[in-house]
């Protein structure tokens, strides 16, 4: 039996990052540099990189190789899928979703951004803000990533020019404002040379802000979900027939045959024992009788915690139900309009039958209309616009109307990044088709000349009843 340990990491917190950049912006080198300079690269991994670098005839270890994952990518020298990297400092642990650029950029950036607290965008100092930067920032804005960091990389190749940096930072600030993104930060960096990544560079004396790692260590890490109203999707009903002995648990369960607990993760807000909540989609009210964990009962719990909640009422909940704050609970709806990022090779057209997975609920749905797609080929304009479309193709972002088989109490994504989100799933092969964000878009409203006539209709000939109840 090992002795009682002393806490080593104590109050270290967790921050989730996503990185995105165009090809050749040096993203892999930046990520490699962050891992390397925080001592998160261990010697055998480094040996491997040095061996491969030497074999390729490179003068020094190519840190980008640290993040090369699958064999196909190594052969082609490209990254094709989101990869997760881990590094830590005494203050924080970071989970970094490394989102490759080009081909699958929407799919990858949407995936990485969906859980990110911070998005780190890269530009090449020689090129400044480019098309891809605009697209990535638009996606981050759409997914409501709370913090945005722009890394102006390869600053060594513009002779550490303050003027170049300031111009790019100004362009980026304008772009961010036009997309409705609040605060952004820009840092001049050479990932290759290590300037301002972890250690402050003496070659940019004109820059007084934080290094990349300083920024990541100091950015506010209070999850935005904590400030939103309480939401608790019921995952699993716990009804033990008897109380099994649990010698490993800190707390002895007070279980009799009547124990009925609702297991789930608090998606947003906070909750207290004794507080009244609404049970959705039914709309009935109940009070919290207790918040149980094997570590002991809790007086209160916050977003992010997995707990077991008991109600002092005999109502029988099941998976898919949601406990919500009595203040402004989401109304269960059958008709839903949402922004959908389409992630599949097959296209989506009105009339399509899909599954909607929301929280712990899943229901059948029919696509009743596509109102338009987001035009991210921005050219000189910085604000994306919605253009008419009658289908969604891979990597499209569109406004989609859905009719649901059973009502879902779905929040607006603008206020609730978790309970406003859903995925679309193919009923026959189970593929994840799209990422949905309910309610008005974070970016812009659909502007069509005449909404009623421009909206494509579901082809009523093929689905005469349209699956409506």
């Amino acid at each position, binding site marked *: *039996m*090992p*002795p*009682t*340990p002393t*806490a*080593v*990491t104590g109050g*270290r*917190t*967790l921050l989730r990052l996503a990185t995105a950049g165009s090809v050749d912006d040096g993203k892999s080198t930046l990520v490699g540099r962050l891992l390397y300079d925080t001592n998160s690269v*261990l010697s*055998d*991994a480094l040996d491997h990189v040095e061996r491969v670098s030497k074999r390729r005839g490179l003068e020094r270890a190519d840190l980008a190789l640290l*993040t090369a*994952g*699958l*064999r*196909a990518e190594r052969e082609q020298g490209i990254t094709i*899928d989101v990869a*997760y990297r*881990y590094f*830590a400092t005494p203050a924080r*642990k970071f989970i970094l979703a*490394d989102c490759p650029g080009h081909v699958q950029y929407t799919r990858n950036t*949407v995936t990485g951004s*969906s*859980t990110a607290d911070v998005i780190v965008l890269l530009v090449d100092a020689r090129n400044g803000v480019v098309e891809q930067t605009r697209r990535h920032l638009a996606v981050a804005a759409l997914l409501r990533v709370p913090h945005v960091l722009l890394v102006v990389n390869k600053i060594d190749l513009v002779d550490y020019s303050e003027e170049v940096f300031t111009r790019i930072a100004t362009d980026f600030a304008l772009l961010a404002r036009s997309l409705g993104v609040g605060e952004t930060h820009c840092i001049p960096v050479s990932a290759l040379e290590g300037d301002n990544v972890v250690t402050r560079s003496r070659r940019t004396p004109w820059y007084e802000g934080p290094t990349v790692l300083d920024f990541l260590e100091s950015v506010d890490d209070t999850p935005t979900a*904590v400030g939103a109203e309480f939401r608790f999707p019921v*995952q*699993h009903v*716990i009804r*033990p027939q008897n*109380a*099994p*002995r*649990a*010698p*490993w648990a800190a707390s002895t*369960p007070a279980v009799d045959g009547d124990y009925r*607990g609702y*297991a789930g*993760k608090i998606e947003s807000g*906070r909750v207290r024992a004794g507080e009244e909540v609404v049970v959705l989609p039914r709309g009935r009210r109940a009070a919290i009788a207790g918040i*149980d964990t*094997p570590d002991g009962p809790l007086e209160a719990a*916050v977003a*992010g*915690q*997995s707990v077991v909640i008991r109600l002092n009422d005999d109502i029988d909940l099941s*998976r898919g139900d949601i406990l919500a704050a009595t203040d402004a609970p989401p109304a269960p709806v059958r008709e839903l309009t949402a922004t959908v990022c389409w992630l599949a090779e097959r296209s989506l057209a009105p009339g399509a039958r899909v599954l909607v*997975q*929301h929280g712990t609920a899943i229901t059948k749905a029919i696509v009743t209309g596509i109102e338009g797609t987001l035009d991210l080929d921005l050219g000189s304009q910085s604000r994306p616009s919605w253009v008419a479309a009658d289908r969604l193709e891979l990597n499209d972002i569109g406004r989609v109307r859905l009719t649901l088989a059973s009502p879902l109490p779905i929040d607006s994504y603008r206020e609730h*990044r978790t309970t406003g989100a*859903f*995925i679309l*799933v193919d009923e026959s092969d*189970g593929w*994840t088709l799209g*990422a949905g964000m309910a309610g008005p878009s974070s970016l812009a409203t659909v502007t069509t000349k005449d909404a009623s006539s421009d909206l494509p209709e579901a082809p009523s000939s093929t689905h005469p009843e349209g699956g409506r109840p």
Partner: protein
Amino acid sequence: MTTEVVRPLTELQALESESIHIFREVAATFANPVLLFSGGKDSVVMLHLAAKAFWPAPIPFEVLHVDTGHNFDEVIEFRDEAVAFYGARLKVASVQDYIDDGRLTERPDGTRNPLQTVPLLDAITDGKHDAVFGGGRRDEERARAKERVFSLRDAFGQWDPRNQRPELWSLYNGRHLPGEHVRVFPLSNWTELDVWDYIAAEKINLPSIYYAHEREVINRDGMWIAVTPVTPAREGEQVEVRSVRYRTVGDMSCTAAVLSDATTVADVITEVGLSTITERGATRADDRLSEAAMEDRKREGYF
């Protein structure tokens, strides 16, 4: 509403909560999950998390050990104790049985890790398991960095890294066709240090070979191999008694020890935190086979 200061969850609280959420999603949406258990530290942490996820009810699925027949005695003893401690039910798939009746042939190098694949896939098929919990972590190896939390396997147990479903928010999609199953990795976002910190914080028991002990070893190709019936000293090799511990448990024929004086969790954390060798590189001889060794085995349905 009262104005209280809300601290973000600590790293370990956040990781534990995420893992528990994953365990519950699987139990609620799959017909017949099973948890792979080797007695190794990651699988003990998995068992602990599973127990916490369903408390005060018992763990609602079986625990499966694919026994190579080359396990350290301490580990097998520990396995049975741990399964009883957490109130779980154990099933064993035995590589030795497969070798004895000719369904598998011993490899020339004597390594049995690659032989686990067939008994594992048979156990999954026979048990009609539609979800299989594994303790894999994304920080372990380059090929794992892109693994999903819910990872679909075809009827042959194969993983197709180029054809993975996108995984967004914490909305896990476990839909699969008959004959397919889903590998689920609740520890995806944990690092080796996180696992140790959690073992410390939760006072989780481990097999004794994780802590420093004296053992007869030989130094082979820079790796410390225990002298056992499976790995006897070869002609000309020098047997030494050293203070060693294991960073992973597994097939004796390809799991090496590291020199260590770490006798407590705190010692190990200090050692791991400062160590400059990744877990697999240090101790799994079979990962040295090729740069793409792990990717190959994953495609074949290895854990």
